[in-house]
């Protein structure tokens, strides 16, 4: 109780509160802008925190981190342009909801779920930091590989009637991820001597191309005057009864997001993929997923905000970053002479409990800001496609360029846009490719590292209990999805 009073008292000044408001506002914008995301936003703000006291500095950075994970869903829902990699899954159901004139409902469920996920993982962080940290260190290459394969297996369940095309799309995604420098040997693979490919193909330009640019191409070729009928545009709110009916899925998504967040290197993107698959698998209406399911949006958003608290578990308890953003946060903490690790709880309880309090307050303020912002974002939805499409292209162009300051990334984005356009024309689903791009690197590197450890033996994947469990669930899940698909009518 003493420590809690210490933590809450840290925020009893105007500077940390102002910092939280500023962090949330900036975070929402940073998350919404393609090309910017939580790691970029935090990295950009760190120099400005040098002159601030530790708690104000942490208030600014953690609020931005929390809000940016939510912000990515706004553009994913309204204009099919995910602002962050984790929001790619949100676009799958969020944008179809906008096309049905239900952008308001999608945006509201997004903010409610994000807030719930964020608060849930904060509570878990407070109550179970130490024991959960032990789970984090159990993950080695073997377990990472199995986690990656489990993530890939959802492709079969997501592509009903098109599982073969879905698998092909995923395989092409895995192949794209092999471009660049081999992470284990340093060999150049499929770079054709071009320096811009030495670091491989970045996920963000491809994601922008597949989602945003392909949509721009569709608008150009179909000459849509309105994206949907004016009369069908609504500002539907989510009733409490409807929200309450989703409570089990909301809780499950938040648990999944928190656990995935705890695993170092498995960030919000993986959390939202796994949560989406699980909720779809257990949903009473799985056929609605991919066509505008509120539950689909909820699963992704609850999970990706829940990874925030989860990622702080290994950071605070072990000094190991749980995500890219927390890796940057370590730098910010060290600048303030704070060293995360096992001794942090005993030496600086003011900082630890201050962080807990900041996360609570930031999530509440984010809820308020998100609800107020819905009306503004609904105006964006009403803009004519002829105007919106070039603006989406412009924003995506800038976003892809600012990632690495390289025009090559923009070229990759345009090529991916063309690829996405052709894939959609021939009925090849985009989602499996996106999932493969997220997981491909982890799957290959973990596989090869695990085989180095086992001296080439594949048995290592079944002798590890965690790995064996993940692979067993994967096989069952795949077999069921393919069996169900073969039983249903042939897809085009």
């Amino acid at each position, binding site marked *: 109780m003493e420590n809690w009073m210490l933590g809450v008292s840290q925020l009893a000044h105007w500077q940390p509160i102002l910092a939280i408001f500023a962090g949330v506002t900036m975070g929402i914008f940073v998350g919404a802008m393609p090309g910017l995301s939580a790691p970029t936003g935090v990295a950009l703000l760190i120099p400005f925190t040098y002159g601030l006291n530790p708690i104000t500095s942490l208030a600014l950075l953690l609020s931005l981190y929390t809000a940016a994970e939510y912000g990515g869903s706004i553009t994913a829902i309204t204009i099919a342009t995910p602002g962050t990699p984790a929001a790619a899954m949100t676009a799958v159901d969020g944008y179809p909801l906008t096309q049905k004139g239900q952008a308001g409902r999608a945006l509201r469920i997004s903010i409610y779920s994000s807030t719930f996920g964020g608060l849930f993982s904060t509570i878990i962080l407070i109550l179970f930091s130490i024991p959960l940290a032990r789970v984090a260190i159990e993950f080695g290459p073997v377990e990472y590989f199995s986690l990656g394969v489990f993530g890939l297996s959802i492709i079969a369940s997501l592509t009903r009637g098109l599982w073969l095309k879905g698998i*092909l799309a995923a395989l092409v995604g895995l192949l794209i991820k092999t471009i660049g420098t081999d992470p284990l*040997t340093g060999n150049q*693979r499929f770079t054709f001597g071009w320096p811009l490919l030495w670091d491989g193909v970045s996920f963000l330009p491809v994601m922008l191309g597949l989602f945003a640019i392909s949509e721009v191409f569709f608008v150009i*070729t179909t000459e849509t005057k309105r994206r949907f009928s004016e009369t069908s545009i609504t500002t539907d709110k989510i009733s409490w009864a409807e929200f309450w009916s989703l409570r089990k899925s909301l809780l499950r998504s938040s648990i999944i997001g928190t656990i995935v967040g705890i695993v170092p290197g498995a960030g919000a993107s993986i959390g939202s993929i796994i949560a989406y698959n699980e909720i779809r698998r257990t949903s009473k209406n799985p056929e609605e997923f991919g066509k505008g399911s509120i539950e689909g949006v909820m699963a992704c958003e609850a999970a990706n905000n829940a990874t925030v608290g989860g990622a702080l578990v290994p950071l605070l308890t072990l000094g190991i970053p749980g995500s890219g953003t927390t890796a940057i946060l370590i730098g910010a903490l060290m600048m303030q002479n704070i060293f995360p690790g096992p001794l942090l709880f005993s030496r600086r309880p003011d900082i630890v409990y201050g962080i807990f309090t900041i996360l609570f307050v930031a999530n509440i303020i984010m809820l308020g800001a998100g609800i107020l912002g819905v009306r503004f974002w609904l105006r964006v939805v009403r803009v004519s496609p002829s*105007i919106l499409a070039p603006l989406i292209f412009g924003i995506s*162009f800038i976003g892809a*360029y600012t990632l690495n300051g390289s025009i090559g990334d923009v070229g990759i984005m345009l090529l991916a846009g063309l690829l996405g356009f052709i894939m959609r024309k021939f009925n090849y689903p985009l989602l499996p490719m996106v999932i493969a791009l997220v997981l491909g690197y982890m799957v290959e590197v973990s596989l090869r590292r695990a085989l180095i450890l086992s001296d080439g033996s594949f048995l290592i994947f079944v002798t590890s209990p965690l790995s064996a469990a993940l692979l067993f669930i994967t096989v069952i899940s795949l077999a069921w999805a393919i069996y169900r698909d073969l039983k249903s009518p042939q897809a085009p």
Partner: protein
Amino acid sequence: MRRGDIVIGGLLVLLSVAVWVGAASFEAGTAMVKTFSPAYYPRFVAGTIAFCAILNMLRSYRTPADGIAPEWGNWRKLLLCTVVMTFQLLTFEEAGFFPSTWVSLTLLLWILNVRPVRCILISSGFVLFIYLFFVRLLQLQLPMEFFPAFFGYS
């Protein structure tokens, strides 16, 4: 759609062959005797692509022709817009952010039948927004010099 599936399948098989052949040049170090060399994983993926592509082609061949072909819509406008996008790609660093983005955006809006005055206003507003938000507020680097090679910027 059947013909399209067969063509796409054929292209994927060709891609797999190209990857298989290309991977032959990846050298395996002495430490890779019992584990995957750099070529193994891409070849495994390529082989699986070829297998699934052939399967898909067979499946399409056995499905009755449905007479449905992809609707390409106004492909001429698409081509024109792609040219403008490529123009912005090629001139962004050479001409600078302001002229490249403004010209490209104005052209794209005009191609999509937005009135000329609106094109100019929207493009100007967009460029200003990007400058204020990305460059001034977030201090991100965009090529701000105007035709740097021509005016001799270092």
